[in-house]
């Protein structure tokens, strides 16, 4: 094991080392460094425009990083394309719902499951003949209480249902780390409580990195919180610490 190995002998699931991104003169993300261990639940909070989603896009390979490193299970993946990162065990959801609107719920999940299977290149056999893929899809839909809407086209689902399906798609590849970009965005308070409960029921070994504005969701889910401000990590700590931090209150929670 390398020097990155943590005290208890485990390799971090995800590690960022001085990760930065600038768009022209705008430094969207500046020298972000942190580690996520298996089972960690970490939240990133910060005002709008703090660089949270950009950070996610760097971690998942949608944008190339300007400098710094991303390590997944100790492996440097900084220059990798998104689909290869997924193959290593990373999954994410999007702040703006990114489903396949004109396909059914079942087809959405089937695509998500096939993503990491070699059979995605098979073109001489119907997808419907893959029993194991269908079984897994139905199992996932059952868990998320979607079974009765399996054949509904996604564009006809409510916003709340679409947000939930986002997470189902993220889970379909059996990831080791799940990046959630504002899972509760646009949900009613009742729905976001449901969402939180759903997330808390997930496998405790699954590491979660979460961006969220809904502080109830953050304080219920996260073990640690990092505050991002102008692309920099301002402070990291346990939820109570962050709640009571003077600096954080000034920039984010408001001083009222």
């Amino acid at each position: 094991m390398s020097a990155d190995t943590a005290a208890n002998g485990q390799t971090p699931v995800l590690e960022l080392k001085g990760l930065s991104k600038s768009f022209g003169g705008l430094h969207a993300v500046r020298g972000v460094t942190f580690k996520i261990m298996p089972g960690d639940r970490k939240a990133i909070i910060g005002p709008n425009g703090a660089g949270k989603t950009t950070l996610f896009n760097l971690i998942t390979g949608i944008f190339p990083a300007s400098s710094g490193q991303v390590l997944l299970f100790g492996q440097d993946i900084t220059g990798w394309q998104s689909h290869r990162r997924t193959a290593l065990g990373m999954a994410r959801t999007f702040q703006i719902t990114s489903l396949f609107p004109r396909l059914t719920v079942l087809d959405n999940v089937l695509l998500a499951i096939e993503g990491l299977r070699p059979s995605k290149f098979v073109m001489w056999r119907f997808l419907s003949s893959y029993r194991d893929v269908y079984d897994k899809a139905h199992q996932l839909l059952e868990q998320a209480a979607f079974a009765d809407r399996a054949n509904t086209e996604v564009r006809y689902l409510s916003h709340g249902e679409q947000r939930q399906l986002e997470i189902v798609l993220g889970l379909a590849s059996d990831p080791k780390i799940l990046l959630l970009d504002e899972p509760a965005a646009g949900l009613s308070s009742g729905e976001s409580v449901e969402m939180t409960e759903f997330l808390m029921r997930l496998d405790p070994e699954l590491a979660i990195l979460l961006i969220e504005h809904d502080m109830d969701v953050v304080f219920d889910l996260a073990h640690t919180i990092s505050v991002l401000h102008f692309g920099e990590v301002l402070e990291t700590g346990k939820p109570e610490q962050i709640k009571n931090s003077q600096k954080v209150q000034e920039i984010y929670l408001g001083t009222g």
Partner: protein
Amino acid sequence: MRSHRLKILMVIVALAAVAIVVPNTGSFVILLVTRALAFSILVMSLDILLGYTGLASLGQAAYLGVGAYATAILATKYHFGLGWDFWLVLLIGILLGAALAAFFGLLAIRASGVYFLMITLALGQCVWGLAYRWNSLTGGDNGINLRERPKFGGIDLANELTFFFLVFAVFCASLALMYTLVRSPFGRSLAGIRERELRMQILGYNTWLHKYIAFIIAGAFGGLSGVLWAHTAGIVSPENVVLTTSVDALLMAVLGGAGTLVGGVIGTFIVFGLREFLSTLVPWWQYVLGVVYVATILYLPTGLMGIPERLRQKRAKPDNPDGAKKLASLHHAEKTT
């Protein structure tokens, strides 16, 4: 599942009807249907890109051209492909179409939307330029006349009916292959790319590779249709690879309904039929076709194959309580069974 089977059954019945009715008509109809069948393989190959992958290619005629020119050049210059070796030419046409698409795809697939359209248009025009200018090989503007059709075993393809059945068989095989493709895991991944490419990347798909493979497959079927086209028309000229042919193929796919395969075939038959019918009636028949195209895009963007779905949606609208009730009870029945 059941609706899929019903659709397959309907297509098989329609094909059987064609196989039974057409031989009993005159040679004019037989030739017309043969031409439409050969061309509709190209339209279906385009539909894989347009309807299933979401890539509007404006250079699909290039692949038909490669297959057709290869057939004509081999037959006239080397007397090759007029016996049993016709099947070899069929294979060569497929491989050439695929090879050209593999080359063009490297340039075109990195772009999307209008830029993809422009690049495929430009590449298609390059092929046209070659066909037009390379006199020694392609016969330039005059093209190449094929004076005979293949003859092997006891089969003489010079017979219109025999040739019709050959084209019909190749068409059916192509339809079956492409239908299997679009319902395979790979085909479904193309639909995912059409709907949201970024999500597909995040789900672990190398979307570039999937699009590239789809592009090559479409090129291969284009080459196949070119071989048949050369023997159907008896002449191969730059007109076969000019932009208009690519646009026609695109519009036929849209007219029938993109993303349905069969729709493209219906669109091809309608346009070929209208063309023959109208051109005997009026000198300005091309305007009629133009109006048909514009009307399709304005009022029927899902094409003719989309009509049943549109009617169903209209009936299910809440301002029509009967339809809504019917749908609700249907939904209920589904749940209880």
